[in-house]
């Protein structure tokens, strides 16, 4: 009489064990995915560390993380702007680094406090990106640094301003 009961108990036990295994597997997968994202994503702090090597002898002043979505149809080009004071007598080395996992190539443009365009890192006529801008400032003031990605593609980058010796 006890046999059927034991068999049923065993079946339930097996089912529970199977469910538990599924949960363990699921949580392990979630944990693994989160760990991988954290360690290897190039966008963010990791990208700044990579970009740091481009400083060479320049003195780091400021960096901005830039992450923009692709341009939606009929919408304006997504861009982000930051203001920074630059001092006359200093030569600034300005550059940006792109995260390799995104297609977008970042373009930086600088405007003075009169909102006049001073320089941009993209030469439209030649369809060419200039990796580094050297800017010996003669007029102290607040400058606007705008960043956007070529052709409105989605992108992630870091913009860096430093003082060249």
């Amino acid at each position, binding site marked *: 009489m006890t046999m059927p009961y034991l068999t049923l108990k065993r079946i339930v036990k097996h089912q529970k064990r199977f469910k538990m295994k599924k949960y363990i597997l699921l949580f392990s997968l*979630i944990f693994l995915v989160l760990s991988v994202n954290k360690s290897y994503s190039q966008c963010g702090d990791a990208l700044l560390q990579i970009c*740091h090597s481009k400083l060479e002898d320049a003195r780091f002043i400021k960096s901005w993380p830039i992450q923009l979505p692709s341009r939606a149809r009929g919408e304006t080009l997504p861009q982000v702007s930051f203001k920074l004071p*630059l001092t006359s007598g200093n030569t600034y080395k300005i550059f940006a680094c792109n995260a390799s996992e995104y297609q977008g190539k970042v373009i930086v443009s600088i405007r003075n406090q009169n909102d006049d365009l001073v320089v941009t890192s993209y030469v439209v006529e030649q369809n060419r990106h200039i*990796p580094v801008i050297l800017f010996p400032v003669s*007029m102290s003031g607040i400058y606007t640094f705008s960043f956007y990605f070529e052709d409105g593609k989605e992108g992630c980058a870091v913009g860096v301003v430093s003082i060249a010796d």
Partner: protein
Amino acid sequence: MKKQKTILVILLLILGQFMSGCQQGQRQEASDLLSDSFSEGDLRLNNAMIAEVISSVPNPVEITSILQKSGVVYSQDLLNPAGNISNYNTNFQRALNIGVYGTDLIYMNIYDRTVATLRYLSNIRELAGDLRVEQFFDYATLNRLSESSKNVDSVLFITNTGFDKMSRYLIDQGRSNIAVLISAGTWIESLYIAAHAQTTEANRETINKRIGEQKKVLDNLLLLMNFYGADSGLDELIEDLMTVKKEFDNVTITYQYAEPSIRESDGMLVVVDNSRSKVDISDETVRNIANAIAVVRNKIIE
């Protein structure tokens, strides 16, 4: 079965720990209240606006680089003595002096006095700990790098990114009053060092002009500080800075805009800036600014 349950619980705990690690800072600061009768006032400022004004305060590297390039000699006497840290018992004092010590640290590094920076680093760590923002500085690496003057650029990189992240974090967490005070401390110390540096006939004009240009920075800083309401604890500091502003009123700055020319050299784009700014500032005004900022600065470091 029991064993599997235990594994599941362990996994859940690890996952929970991992998730909370990502958001630890946010949770920690959600209940952060300053105990120093120091509130933000009734008026809520837009975070982007606060960040923008804080960004308009020049990094100490700017003025210190000019001093060094102009041949101004280094003076340890200009720095806030490291031992003064024991005087800072309120968050108001801690925030201002983290900015002061941060500027001193940068000044020492620019002049290759890296070994002497260790006590200043330790002070920043302590003050940042008291303000619960110590997570933004990699002190172990900074200590190691400070052992050699060859690592100045890396030290500046870690210090500046640390201050930057700390400021952004404080603003995001609704503690922008602390970020503003750190920024004010940074600016006050930078101006104090520039105005009291031993200039020579050859570099005096350059340094004086850079001092005169701080007029606009002070205007922005005061504008921001005035937003924080009467009960913010900033009143006295604003009042003191108004005496400095009075001296800056004798400075005239004019701008002449001209289109820049651009050339390419070694794969770099070199901008030739044809715009000019003219700063009219007399020696007497510089002396008065130096005296006025010394009063404010000595009050905050004592």
